[in-house]
């Protein structure tokens, strides 16, 4: 455990060094958030009765999405990991007295967290200062805060576990390009990154809610904004636990299988 913790620390501190990139990313995130809210406001003015959630819950969703983009972006991959598999450099990693799965899991977690830590605070503060329905609205009860945090953690672990499955799949296919493309575009849409899931048409929405991707940003952000509560909230949390477990197990089985038949050609 201790070695993974120090590995986490190394990666985390490494990630914190890119301050200029973080600043630049933040500016982009601000603009994105504002544009997104202006866009949804236009729709809201057109037909408020067709709006599937409270406007302020939507604004909250959008600002959380911008602030925590680094935690939940499914299109973010570490090229080094793909590269080390295709070139065989992964052999060096296998010499170490750690498990590959655990080490890469820690690494992905650290990278995402270090990116998010630098960016989230200014964005959240700015969004909180914005006037009423357009800004970030804080939930009133400690209960909601607790479940948001719990759900955010589950969602983050799920995104990392999902990424691990994709990394592991490269052991079997060698070329990562095709899988990456399809996974990226599918998961983007199905996780609610393009439009929040409540805005999908009826039949499709129910179906998408059952898919694993709904367990990422969709759940915590909607709990925080007060859109997801009561029975639905507990069901979604259970769904998160379920999909997290499935992907953790799947990734580790794939790791075992891959390492068993792995041949390193020397060189």
């Amino acid at each position, binding site marked *: 455990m201790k070695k993974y913790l120090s590995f986490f620390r190394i990666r985390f501190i490494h990630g914190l060094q890119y301050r200029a*990139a973080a600043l*630049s*990313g933040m*500016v*982009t995130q601000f*603009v*994105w958030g504002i*544009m997104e809210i*202006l*866009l949804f*406001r*236009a*729709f809201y*003015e*057109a*037909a408020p009765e*067709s709006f*599937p959630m409270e406007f302020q819950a939507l604004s909250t969703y959008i600002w959380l999405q911008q602030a925590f983009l680094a935690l939940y972006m499914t299109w973010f991959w570490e090229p080094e990991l793909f590269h080390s598999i295709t070139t065989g450099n992964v052999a060096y990693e296998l010499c170490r007295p750690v498990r590959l799965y655990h080490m890469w899991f820690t690494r992905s977690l650290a990278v995402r967290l270090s990116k998010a830590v630098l960016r989230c605070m200014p964005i959240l503060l700015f969004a909180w200062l914005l006037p009423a329905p357009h800004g970030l609205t804080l939930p009133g009860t400690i209960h909601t805060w607790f479940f948001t945090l719990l759900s955010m953690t589950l969602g983050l672990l799920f995104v990392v576990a999902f990424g691990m499955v994709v990394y592991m799949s490269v052991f079997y296919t060698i070329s990562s*390009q*095709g899988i990456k*493309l*399809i996974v*990226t*575009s599918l998961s*983007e*849409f199905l996780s609610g990154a*393009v*439009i929040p899931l409540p*805005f*999908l*048409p009826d039949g*499709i929405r129910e179906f998408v809610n059952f898919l694993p991707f709904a367990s990422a940003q969709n759940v915590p952000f909607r709990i925080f904004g007060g859109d997801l509560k009561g029975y639905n909230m507990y069901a979604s949390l259970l769904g998160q636990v379920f999909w997290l477990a499935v992907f953790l197990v799947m990734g580790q089985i794939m790791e075992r299988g891959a390492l068993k038949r792995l041949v390193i050609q020397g060189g």
Partner: protein
Amino acid sequence: MNSIRLYEKYLLIHLKSMMQHKASFLLTTIGQFLISFNIFLGVRFMMDRFKEVKGFSYGEVLLCFSITLMAYTIAETIFRSLDTFETIIGNGEFDRILLRPRGSLFLVLCSKIELTRIGRLLQAAVMLAYGLNFSSITWNPVRIVTVVLMITGGVAVFAAIYLIFASICFFTLEGLEFMNVFTDGAREYGKYPIGIYGKTLLTICTYLVPFALFQYYPFLYLTGKTPDPRYSLLPLAACLFLVPAGLLWNFGLSHYQSTGS
């Protein structure tokens, strides 16, 4: 004339090198298609639910989206080298370009022609055809010319932004990520007519970065929201954005000191 022939030669070289890796080319093309298909799905589902936005119907929004996407994609195909200019400066390739007996900007453009964007271009073309058919616009020659002008103006505006981005690289020697706001952002949010985002943004996009000049105003005329045909000429005004961008490029070029690599 000579330059055009040279450009054709470069184009052929890029095409040939691309075809060396057919599978990779195909996958990237599909990827490009899928990514903008996501945006399309977003528009589709939103319009399904709300029927119209600020008086624009689904067909009209689709037409607007396809025109913006078309302009963006053409611009990205031709001017991709400017978008990644920091690598050209960083690896010393620009120093080599300066030694050649041709315009440096022309040679930079020739150094990279992004043919993988064909996936996105295809999608824009299909959507344009669909939008043209189903937007209940009565077509006449002026309106058809308007569409062509809108695309041309769009390419010019995006080209100018790429040019500004590249010129900044002369001083910073690396790219500024937030410039993406103007390119990716315009593609992302230009899917709807800019007017729906409100007055403030419309003003910014009219006077500061002229997105609205090629997208929103001529589109108003196209959809019959204004009878004034002068609106359809505004994309030409948007092309003027190239002038300050070109000046900035020349200014940057004259102050360029090699990176020494």
